């Protein structure tokens, strides 16, 4: 299984490198790994094979990558990869020949598919988290694919901020969950309760809600429609937005018993189902209708899964399958209409029934499935949901029935309005017979036809579909074994309710189709999110301007002051007891010399004089090391002093010969910090030397170092053996720091003043939404 993900990744990297040369053929390359995944998933679905594959990354830290293929995950993998293949075909038709950036698009799409495949098969919390974040990032890249389009960039940023915040909630939630259910595989989680479990339940539900665009986190999804339609059809209907649903399904066995899980999950689901459907009714852009509809449908899935009854879980899995098929098909049709007519506005579109017959038939099938009309896969799925709601007790039953009936009526209504608006006759008789259309694009039509056939075939082969859905549900809840999807349930309550839903919805939809012709309202809250993001950027600039003020003495003062404060804990262990004058007289003489030179250094007026005095101090300190008998320190100190001298030789010529005169507050704050630093250093030295005089204990590492330096490290110089062998990893880290410092120095010094900074904060107005007045912060 892991090899499959690696194969995906390798193909994606290869496409990233050469994709642009392949043009639209890159979709063939992208489709290949997805086809393999789909085949593996199909085989596992049919044979009911269970595969677990693990790779231990860090032993002892429980950082293990584990993926599993069971009835549930293989079904999801089949949807992700199977629809992915169709999307690749579709995208090859969507992009015109010679479009720039097609290779990049295909590579990112494949990378997303990798992340999504990894997410659905993940079997440890960390595996799931990593792939979860990868879907956020790849989704960001795909939404912002048209990178010159300011609207797309803002939408991508909004989507990233919301879903990545959800990722943080997920991380916190997993930490809390693994605190009470430690180390368990996701498939073996056991029911937990208590404070941490409650916290985990809330955080994980919030994470799921951000990803699955649940109210109030849904605001990113309509904006994400700025992406090319293949992305909308793949990520924002069939796959990525289902990640939250998958998460709720996976975490449900562990957290379903916590008091908050069901109420919070149902609250997210119920508000989203209703508000999403209302939103869909108010839109005039066909793609936005579909996006809001997705919010609504995902709400139903989340609500059903968080109820926790086996029947509801079964219904949710059935809806996941049916929704993936019909919603992807509808998005594909909308994209085809967009490409062939140049508009997605249902007020401008009319009469496409004759000019786009294939799209019309596909739309009717997919819409009817979405509305829950037989003989299509959506019908038994929605029946199962109504049955599940009827099977509940008390308040849960009332709430679930209300949202399923209310939400479904609205769903039928917006579906009717969409179909009538696009394919029906014009409401405005002065306009032409039907909207003009460009020639057919078979590559775009074919995948949607396949999905429509699958929707039909799913109903025809309902027994087979039932088996798969049941198998998947049993993984989540073993009691789901007894349920079936029924082709003809008989005149049950649920059936009568379904008939009522379709009839009322159709009437409402037809009535509203004529009335709702005005422009659509802006997404409530979306501007707020953008404003908040912009404000954070403004705040960051203000803070950066204050902290990075550019005054070198200021920086030095800050650093020294902080170091002085850091030494303050030593005050508690301050003890003058073990302090003594010197080991030999030479040390005393040198110490006096160093002190005198240090005082002189503060008195000299010229820079050359200061450099000389500092050099004298350095060499006197070297002398101290000699007197103490530390040849390694002597050598290093000597060489450092040499380098400093060369530095002065080079640098002094560029400075004024005397120090500038300073006074007032600046001088006194410098003096204060210097005094503080001097005191702190003295305290720290005395405190740390308190341990002198004691010989190291017998089992101390000091002895082992002396003994093993020659045998293990191959050298007699312990200091160097420590550096290059015993603690070589530290040295490696340190030299990497040195490289980073060097790169930083080069970056700073190679920017000549006449070149000017490459980045000017004010020179990015295209990142600002035109109508927003927030980012006008020219300073």
């Amino acid at each position, binding site marked *: 299984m892991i090899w499959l993900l690696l194969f995906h990744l390798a193909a994606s990297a290869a496409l990233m490198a050469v994709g642009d040369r392949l043009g639209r053929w890159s979709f063939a390359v992208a489709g290949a790994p997805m086809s393999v995944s789909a085949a593996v998933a199909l085989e596992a679905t049919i044979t009911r094979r269970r595969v677990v594959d693990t790779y231990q990354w860090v032993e002892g830290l429980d950082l293990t990558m584990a993926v599993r293929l069971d009835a549930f995950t293989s079904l999801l993998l089949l949807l992700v990869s199977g629809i992915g293949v169709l999307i690749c075909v579709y995208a090859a038709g969507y992009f015109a020949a010679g479009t720039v950036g097609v290779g990049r698009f295909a590579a990112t799409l494949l990378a997303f598919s990798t992340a999504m495949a990894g997410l659905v098969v993940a079997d440890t919390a960390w595996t799931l988290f990593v792939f979860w974040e990868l879907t956020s990032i790849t989704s960001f890249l795909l939404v912002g694919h048209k990178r010159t389009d300011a609207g797309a960039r803002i939408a991508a940023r909004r989507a990233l901020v919301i879903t990545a915040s959800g990722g943080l909630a997920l991380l916190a939630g997993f930490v809390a969950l693994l605190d009470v259910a430690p180390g368990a595989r996701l498939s073996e989680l056991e029911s937990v309760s208590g404070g941490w479990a409650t916290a985990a339940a809330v955080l994980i539900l919030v994470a799921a809600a951000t990803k699955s665009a649940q109210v109030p986190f849904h605001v990113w999804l309509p904006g994400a429609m700025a992406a090319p339609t293949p992305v909308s059809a793949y990520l924002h209907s069939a796959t990525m937005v289902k990640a939250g649903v998958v998460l709720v399904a996976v975490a449900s066995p562990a957290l379903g018993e916590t008091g908050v899980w069901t109420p919070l999950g149902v609250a997210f689901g119920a508000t989203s189902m209703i508000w999403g459907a209302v939103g869909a009714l108010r839109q005039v852009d066909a793609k936005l209708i579909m996006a809001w509809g997705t919010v609504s449908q995902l709400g139903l899935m989340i609500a059903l899964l968080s109820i926790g009854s086996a029947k509801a879980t079964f219904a949710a899995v059935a809806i996941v399958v049916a929704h993936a098929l019909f919603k992807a098909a509808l998005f594909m049709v909308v994209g085809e209409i967009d490409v062939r007519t140049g508009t997605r506005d249902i007020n401008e579109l009319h009469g496409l029934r004759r000019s786009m017959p294939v799209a019309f038939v596909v739309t009717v099938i997919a819409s009817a499935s979405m509305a829950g009309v037989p003989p299509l896969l959506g019908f038994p799925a929605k029946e199962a949901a109504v049955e599940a709601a009827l099977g509940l007790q008390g308040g849960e039953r009332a709430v679930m029935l209300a949202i399923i009936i209310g939400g479904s009526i609205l769903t039928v209504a917006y579906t009717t309005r969409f179909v009538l608006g696009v394919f029906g006759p014009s409401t405005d008789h002065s306009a032409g017979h039907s909207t003009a259309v460009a020639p057919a694009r078979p590559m775009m039509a074919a995948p949607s036809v396949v999905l429509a056939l699958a929707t039909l075939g799913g109903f025809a082969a309902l027994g087979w579909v039932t088996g798969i859905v049941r198998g998947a549900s049993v993984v989540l809840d073993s009691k789901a074994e007894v349920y079936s999807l029924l082709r003809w349930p008989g005149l049950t309550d649920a059936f009568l309710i379904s008939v009522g839903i379709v009839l009322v919805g159709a009437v409402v939809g037809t009535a509203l189709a004529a009335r709702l012709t005005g422009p659509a309202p802006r997404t409530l809250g979306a501007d707020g999110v953008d404003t908040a993001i912009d404000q954070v950027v403004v705040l960051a600039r203000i803070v950066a301007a204050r902290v990075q003020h550019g005054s070198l003495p200021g920086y030095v003062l800050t650093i020294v002051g902080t170091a002085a404060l850091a030494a303050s804990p030593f005050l508690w262990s301050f003890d003058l007891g073990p302090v003594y004058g010197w080991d030999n007289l030479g040390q005393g003489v040198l110490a006096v010399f160093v002190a005198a030179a240090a005082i002189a250094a503060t008195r000299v007026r010229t820079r050359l004089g200061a450099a000389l005095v500092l050099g004298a101090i350095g060499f006197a300190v070297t002398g101290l090391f000699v007197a103490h008998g530390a*040849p390694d320190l002597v050598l290093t100190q000597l060489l450092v002093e040499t380098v400093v001298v060369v530095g002065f030789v080079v640098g002094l010529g560029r400075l004024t010969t005397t120090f500038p005169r300073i006074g007032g507050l600046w001088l006194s704050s410098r003096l204060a910090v210097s005094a503080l630093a001097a005191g702190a250093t003295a305290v720290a030295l005395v405190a740390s030397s308190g341990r002198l005089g004691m010989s190291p204990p017998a089992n101390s590492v000091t002895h082992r170092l002396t003994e093993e330096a020659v045998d293990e490290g*191959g050298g007699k110089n312990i200091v160097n053996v420590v550096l290059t062998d015993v603690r070589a990893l530290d040295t490696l880290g340190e030299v990497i720091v040195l490289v980073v410092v*060097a790169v930083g120095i080069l970056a700073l010094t190679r920017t000549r003043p006449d070149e000017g900074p490459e980045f000017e904060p004010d020179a990015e107005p295209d990142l600002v939404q035109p109508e927003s007045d927030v980012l006008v912060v020219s300073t």
Partner: protein
Amino acid sequence: MIARRSPIVQLGVRAATTLALVFAVFAFFAGHNRPGGGFAAGLLLGAVLVLRTVAGLSQPLRPVPTLAAGGIIAAVVALLPMVWGDVALDQFEVETTLPLLGKVKSGTALLFDLGVTAIVVGLVVALLEGFGAEQLAGPQGRDE
């Protein structure tokens, strides 16, 4: 400019170069058993290279390739043992007898130290040239 004004500097730096090179090589190899080592050798080499630039004796060393080479050497030595399943940075020692030098013992730690040296040289050069050593040598740089 200093260079053209002062043949003393040029002569001094030339003499210092030889001395410094010999001492750097000595410090590098002696490091394992006596004071010295890659860090010390790097400091010395770096300082002398910058001095040569200041005196107009040679073109300035380009620090980036040096840094990159050092980083790659250190990282490869660190990670290579993992290829055959040992822990990272595991030492590998050779002992051989060379003419003139007699019995010589060395290990991969020496290679690792070489990486450290290169990085320190790169850092010192980057740091001091940041102060403008190149301009100091005059617009034509090398003026022998």
